[in-house]
């Protein structure tokens, strides 16, 4: 049945477009720059989504992570740099992860399931997500991010905490995903 449907649909398409003019693609927009993204712009754009943002030098990362996670037990995915944060005992109430790419212009973080980022479910189910972004992972714009990513991996683009505007268009942070997103940007 399905094979017949496939042939019918393809035949319908071919007869529908028969004789239609060739249509070339015009790409006059700004493409990928290959440059580094602006850290301050990224921090500002992430804050716009009501996420908590810290910008810290490399030497102070471990101390900062220890301070902001005090009283929390976080899931630490395999491959997360152990010199930055070590797992503690207890029932986790949040998750810590690294990321693959970050976009300055849109304040977006992209996870690609590489070591240190966990599975997609690990960064989704807890109510708190702490993400560590290295400054060399920040790119200026969306085309740069698309160029850097590998579509064969499962990708999750995150721009602020979970939100809905379904009730009278009032934005409410946090429905099903983590209601708090905290981002630590590592300089140097």
């Amino acid at each position, binding site marked *: 049945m399905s094979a017949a449907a496939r042939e019918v649909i393809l035949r319908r398409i071919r007869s529908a477009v028969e004789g239609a003019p060739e249509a070339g693609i015009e790409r006059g927009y700004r493409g990928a720059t290959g440059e580094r993204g602006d850290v301050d712009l990224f921090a500002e754009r992430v804050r716009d989504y009501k996420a908590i943002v810290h910008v810290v030098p490399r030497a102070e990362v471990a101390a900062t992570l220890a301070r902001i996670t005090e009283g929390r037990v976080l899931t630490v995915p395999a491959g997360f740099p152990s010199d930055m944060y070590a797992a503690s005992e207890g029932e986790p109430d949040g998750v810590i992860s690294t990321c693959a790419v970050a976009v300055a212009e849109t304040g977006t973080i992209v996870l690609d399931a590489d070591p240190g980022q966990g599975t*997609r479910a690990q960064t989704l189910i807890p109510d708190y997500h702490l993400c560590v972004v290295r400054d060399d992972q920040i790119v200026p714009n969306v085309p740069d991010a698309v160029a850097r990513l590998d579509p064969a991996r499962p990708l999750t683009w995150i721009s602020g905490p979970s939100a809905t505007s379904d009730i*009278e268009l009032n934005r409410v942070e946090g429905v099903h995903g983590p209601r708090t997103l905290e981002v630590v940007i590592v300089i140097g």
Partner: protein
Amino acid sequence: MSGVYIGMPAFPQNAAKAVQNSQLRFNLRKATHTIRGRRAAVVGELADWAELRQAGKTIKDHTLRHLDRYLIELEEKVTAAGGVVHWARDAAEANRIVARLVKDTGETEVVKVKSMATMEIGLNEALAEEGIEAFETDLAELIVQLGDDFPSHILVPAIHRNRAEIRELFLKKMAGAPKDLTDEPRALAEAARLYLRKRFLEAKVAISGANFMIAETGTLVVLESEGNGRMCLTLPKTLISVVGIEKLLPAWQDLEVFLQLLPRSSTGERMNPYTSMWTGATEGQEFHLVLLDNGRTSVLADKVGRQALRCIRCSACLNVCPVYERAGGHSYGSVYPGPIGAILTPQLRGMDTELDRSLPYASSLCGACYEVCPVAIDIPSVLVDLRAKARHPRTEKAGMAAAGWVFSRSKRLAKAQRFGGRMRRLVPKRLPGPLSGWTDTRDMPEIPAESFRDWWVREGNR
């Protein structure tokens, strides 16, 4: 398309009723104006918006021109990545495929991510007939589903409901809703979070749509805000995605255009909170892709109307439309309301019903929809073309033929004008019988005592 709207009166009757509902008009005005402002601000931030729009338009046109080739490429890539591809000619076939896939898992419950395509084919109703219960997980879709209601907006399907109504609905229909639930949006969202959490964790099968499919890589893309999409796409063992064949993009790189166009046009954000991309069977899941035609190939065959297939369902055209703002989404009698619905619905369903024939007229042709469309669909031109194709009432045809006869010779026109001028006091404000269709919604123009041409001749001769 699905039969849920069958028997609905034509747009003018629906709209006439809707505009009497002051609560609806208040809700809609507030909502559409809010999103409109947000969209304008974030679109204004991008200096190359016009170029992005042109790229979006040409990428879609190119894809549609070679849709057969790109669908085959997509099928190859999805299959190679462990997914299974199914083809559905129409709604009934798609529903049968999905029901069979769900039954094969032995499950009787599925969770759903908001999807226009599954709404279009009436999947939930079809599954219910097979003893499978589908749970909508998008907050607005949940509100619509609990209220046994119809969606009224592409992006915010419950835009017609205010917080007090939603609170009432949750208390009445949502199992386990807290007795002291307030009408604060935060409290209502929290109630939905708790209600759905268990469902997500226990669900074995999820059904989604997709915003984009990439032929080159076999990747599917879903944009969302709440995280219900991520829950459905990642947690259940089996994922079934039902996607219209026009959602295709040729190359991975093309996403760089659409990931800028869609969020800014749709929710008016630089980026929506969550976007998921996956290729084939991911992280141990089983993945099925159902490619849906359901009228799309006949839209593709229409030289003027085919541009409607560029649509990425952003809903920017709804938010700027003066007709939508006043008449509301339900008046259109389709899951696709507003200007895009007025050109898409009659093309997908055909113009056999009075409702579908009336849709191309649900517009003042002001052109605001064309202006904001991120893929430059010339909605007014398609509307005019569809008006010409729709069957017209006999009185209108006779009137137009008579007018054509009069206007085609200047002597006939002059005679008619002089006759009209003499009879001007006798012309009623409202025309009788079938002609009242004209005067019910328009003032009868004052007929001057003398035509311009006669005046010109008289003055010139002086």
